[in-house]
């Protein structure tokens, strides 16, 4: 980081009060460093003007500023999202990939996929420490439409990558499950409703056939496997059913799910976008239900997108998802490879040609893409530099996701993402859980095993 930024943070750290809706506590934050504390709400002025909290924070402010700067600006990629095909057997309402690609697109050949992974392996070896594997995640459209190539690649590069696969689950037969689980591939599914009628509102085949039962069957096959998850995309169609969703997931012994707000990059998604207040009400009801289920059974259902908010508050560098940090992880922590060899900051941009940073197999490859003009708007999108985020006390717990939405829905990279108020409410909810000593109930056991405590008052 620049000396100017470090000096500014160390010289005059200021704590900003935030009403989190708690009976006893208010939060105070320094947005520049993502520092926070919970203080007695009757003593906010005393805490922010002088005293042990401010004094202790001042001792740490410079190191926290450097830590956050390193997270935001000094990462090199350690993962790639691979699109081995443009095609998908489903036509989901909100997909971020153009329908023409998904219905009539091409597969990446097996030879091309193998050659791509060889180039990617060489790239990651050049930027990652020895002994640490990069992640390679096969991703949408529907990667199992090109199953033979995907499975050949997984076996060919078993020693070089930690593999994951995000699939709609409809092609996950017994053979595929056996192959993937025997190779410790992390598997993600998608399901939008607790019953077929709700799932069908947004996720169907091109001919309008329901796939709900097929996904439930895939979930049954994965029960007991250590590394699998299910994503629910929250829309106007399923919002009233989120509590039933988490009940279903808990009953099916899903270890981890995501209850994601619909990404509004393409127009189809905006037609099912819920209002922020409606999203918050349904989401927190579902979160409350996961907690009640944990207390009843002793078994957690991790809601990963919310867990990541909590972790981003408690340990900014331990966050696992890189959407809610600014700049986001696209083009910094990871990048995406399209089926035609094109490189994009994130899969979310594959339907937007102006974000194509070149071809993996062209001169310069990954390095050229990362420094390309196409990637620049994404990797330089900085919530410190545009309003209203630059005046927001929680901007580094949120990151104003997603740049693709900001650009396509709200008119530019210097605009907010699609769910600003919902993110504020999520942070308040997370801080209330911390105040009540419940935060660990929403995180997996051992989440902080590899962390060092650098500040503690309690």
């Amino acid at each position, binding site marked *: 980081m620049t000396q100017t930024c470090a000096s500014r943070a160390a010289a005059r750290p200021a704590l900003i009060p935030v009403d989190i809706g708690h009976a006893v506590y208010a939060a105070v934050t320094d947005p520049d460093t993502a520092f926070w504390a*919970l203080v007695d709400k009757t003593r906010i002025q005393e805490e922010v003007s002088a005293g042990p909290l401010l004094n202790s924070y001042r001792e740490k402010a410079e190191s926290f500023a450097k830590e956050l700067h390193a997270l935001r600006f000094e990462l090199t990629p350690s993962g790639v999202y691979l699109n081995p095909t443009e095609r998908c057997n489903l036509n989901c309402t909100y997909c971020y990939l153009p329908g023409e690609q998904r219905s009539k697109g091409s597969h990446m050949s097996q030879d091309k996929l193998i050659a791509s992974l060889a180039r990617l392996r060489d790239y990651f070896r050049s930027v990652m420490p020895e002994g640490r*594997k990069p992640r390679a995640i096969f991703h949408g459209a529907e990667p199992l439409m090109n199953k033979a190539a995907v499975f050949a690649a997984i076996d060919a590069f078993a020693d070089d990558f930690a593999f994951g696969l995000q699939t709609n689950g409809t092609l996950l037969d017994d053979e595929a499950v056996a192959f993937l689980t025997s190779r410790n591939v992390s598997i993600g599914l998608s399901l939008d409703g607790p019953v077929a009628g709700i799932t069908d509102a947004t996720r169907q085949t091109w001919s309008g056939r329901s796939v709900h039962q097929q996904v439930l069957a895939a979930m049954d096959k994965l029960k007991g496997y250590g590394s699998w998850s299910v994503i629910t995309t929250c829309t106007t169609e399923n919002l009233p059913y989120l509590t039933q969703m988490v009940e279903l997931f808990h009953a099916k012994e899903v270890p981890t799910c995501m209850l994601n707000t619909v990404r509004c990059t393409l127009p189809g998604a905006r037609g099912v976008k819920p209002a922020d207040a409606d999203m918050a009400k349904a989401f927190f009801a579902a979160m409350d239900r996961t907690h009640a289920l944990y207390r009843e059974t002793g078994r957690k259902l991790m809601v990963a997108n919310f867990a990541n908010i909590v972790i981003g508050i408690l340990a900014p560098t331990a966050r*696992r998802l890189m959407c809610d940090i600014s700049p986001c*992880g696209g083009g910094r922590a990871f990048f995406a490879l399209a089926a035609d060899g094109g490189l994009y900051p994130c899969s979310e941009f594959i339907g937007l040609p102006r974000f194509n940073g070149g071809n993996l197999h062209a001169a310069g490859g990954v390095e050229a893409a990362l420094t390309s003009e196409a990637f620049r708007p994404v990797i330089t999108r900085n919530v410190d530099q545009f309003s209203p985020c630059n005046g927001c006390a929680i901007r580094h717990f949120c990151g104003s996701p997603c740049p693709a939405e900001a650009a396509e829905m709200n008119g530019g990279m210097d605009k907010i993402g699609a769910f600003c108020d919902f993110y504020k409410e999520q942070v308040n909810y997370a801080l209330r859980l911390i105040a009540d000593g419940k935060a660990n109930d929403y995180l997996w056991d051992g989440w902080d095993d590899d962390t060092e405590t650098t*500040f503690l008052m309690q």
Partner: protein
Amino acid sequence: MTQIHNVPSSASAPNTTATATAPQEQPIAPTIAVRKSCNPDGIGLSHYVLMDKKAAK
């Protein structure tokens, strides 16, 4: 590591000589602040989740 136990100042401590008719002051809630640090290696996004660092190793 910085570890502080919040000690109320004399000015803000509960008044132990209050009369029986005065309303009872609430004790000051202790300040809570936690920050942990590690080497960042998150690569997840909203289309894919792998929360546990050890899961794919």
